[in-house]
């Protein structure tokens, strides 16, 4: 899978927040084989790199880092945070979150497009956290984004893919654009479904970090993502109403 020209081996991405300890976090990454770690900048960014000790532990994971603007509610906050992240992590990748609603944490589509444009013009490679809205996707692509990160459900809910129709439409509208289902996944089966539908990858955090055994859950997601992708590439059968036996019945004593 290529994201902004970089080959990423794993289709599973993990967040780095809310784990019981950095040690458990590292174990979850090891078992998941995740190729990208998202890392939140804003809260920890006290003066003079106060979060440096934790960031060093995240760097030691040895995976590509995707800093995010989690918790930003305005364009200006998000842009400033992105610039800070570029300094801190020496990358022009940014997962752009502009939150529009405090309770559902759903993206502010207007702020998102504006921030994406500003950051793209400034040389950032923007990974926007967006809804399944096709028009919004179009605007984000026009603003310079080459990857989209539609939500499955609101952040941290674990509800899975709540609008299958909308997500299918989005996937079908932009077949060439890499898309990562970001947020809302709670179970590996939901991740498998996203990959079966042709999404390129999934990003999750709470589902792993808050599981009783985060490393075990991480491995569960890794296998599901692999299964889902294999199924997508294998061109699955179409569902149908009528039963169709896989072994011919002719010649069998089915009337006996």
């Amino acid at each position, binding site marked *: 899978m290529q994201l902004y020209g970089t080959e990423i081996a794993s289709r599973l991405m993990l967040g780095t927040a809310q784990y*019981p*300890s*950095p*040690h*458990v976090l*590292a174990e979850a990454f090891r078992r998941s084989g995740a190729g990208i770690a998202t890392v939140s900048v804003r*809260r*920890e*960014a*006290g*003066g*003079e790199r*106060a*979060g440096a*000790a*934790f960031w060093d*532990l995240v760097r030691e994971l040895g995976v590509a880092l995707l800093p995010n603007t989690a918790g930003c509610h305005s364009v200006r906050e998000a842009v400033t945070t992105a610039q800070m992240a570029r300094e801190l992590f020496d990358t022009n990748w940014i997962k752009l979150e502009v939150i529009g609603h405090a309770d559902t944490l759903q993206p502010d589509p207007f702020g998102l497009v504006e921030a994406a444009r500003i950051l793209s013009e400034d040389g950032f490679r923007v990974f926007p956290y967006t809804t399944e809205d096709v028009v919004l996707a179009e605007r984000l692509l026009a603003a310079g984004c080459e990857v989209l990160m539609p939500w499955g459900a609101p952040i*941290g809910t674990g509800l899975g893919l709540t609008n299958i129709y909308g997500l299918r439409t989005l996937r079908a509208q932009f077949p060439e654009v890499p898309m990562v289902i970001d947020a809302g996944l709670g179970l590996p089966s939901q991740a498998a479904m996203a990959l079966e539908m042709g999404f390129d990858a999934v990003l999750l955090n*709470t589902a792993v970090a808050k599981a*009783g055994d985060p490393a075990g859950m991480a491995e569960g997601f890794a296998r599901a993502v692999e299964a889902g992708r294999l199924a997508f590439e294998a061109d699955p059968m179409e569902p149908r109403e009528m039963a169709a036996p896989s072994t011919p019945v002719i010649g069998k004593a089915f009337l006996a």
Partner: protein
Amino acid sequence: MRAKVLGAGVAGLCVAAELVARGCEVTVFDPAPRPGPHGCSWWAGGMLAPFCEGETAEEPVVRLGREAVDWWQRQGVRVERHGTIVLTLGRDRRELDRFARRVEGHAALDAAGLAALEPDLGGRFDRALHVAAEAHLDPRVALLHLRDRLEREGVAFVEGPGPAGGPTFDCRGLAARDSLPDLRGVKGEMAVLRSPDIRLARPVRLLHPRFPLYVVPRADGHFMLGATQIESDDRRRSVRSVLELLSAAYALHPAFGEAELVEIGVDARPAFPDNLPRLRRRGETIHVNGLFRHGFLLAPALARMAVEAACDHTTPELMDEDHD
């Protein structure tokens, strides 16, 4: 044996107490040898809650933490043994089921059961957990009590970093990063409120997917609200954290809206990557560090183990050895 203890926080004082109990001659060195706001322990909640901590902490925390209640009581510290109440707001009630699955030692309460234990919470929550074997203390009272008692028993408290050499227990917390590079700071913010309108007999934990909160009652209508947990060693008290703590307290009981805001505190907890404490032996020095959010809970066990290692030449669990 003559021994030096570096650091007069909860770890240093507990080690000094264990040494004195073995008849050792003890000097405690600290740049500020009287407990106060310069030390991380000052900002602690004082919950002795090994079972609840087991929600996220590893097994040794739950097991070793069970020594804490009796240990503090033996030191003459007032320990309130009324357990812990665990609650959720209505729409988060499934958090309570998850917590109940992962934590031992609790009993389910219905509305009447909760009202019987905590009348001021009656009618506000229809379901709760009671973790009866837990307890709490006032950490500041405990620190001052222990220090004064040790001084009366002949422990010298000396201002300054302390000379090198000889048997040493290094309990300097985050300040020991100069020799423990794998130590990091985890920021915690807390607030103290005073309200004459609410009475609680025991700590209350409010489970919330975004803003977990605990409230620990203290003397004279005071309540400690804690605590954020942020991967940073910065010590700014952020508006956002205080808003979260106060909003959660208000959701727990609206009378907190009328409370007096007495104090907002912050410090960085010393932690190793697995958030478990360590005894690290280096020549004649034993580091006692990484107590994370479990200072008052784990310092008694760690102090016992450190002193056993020094006096009885044992190698206790959580001990590792390295050389400069």
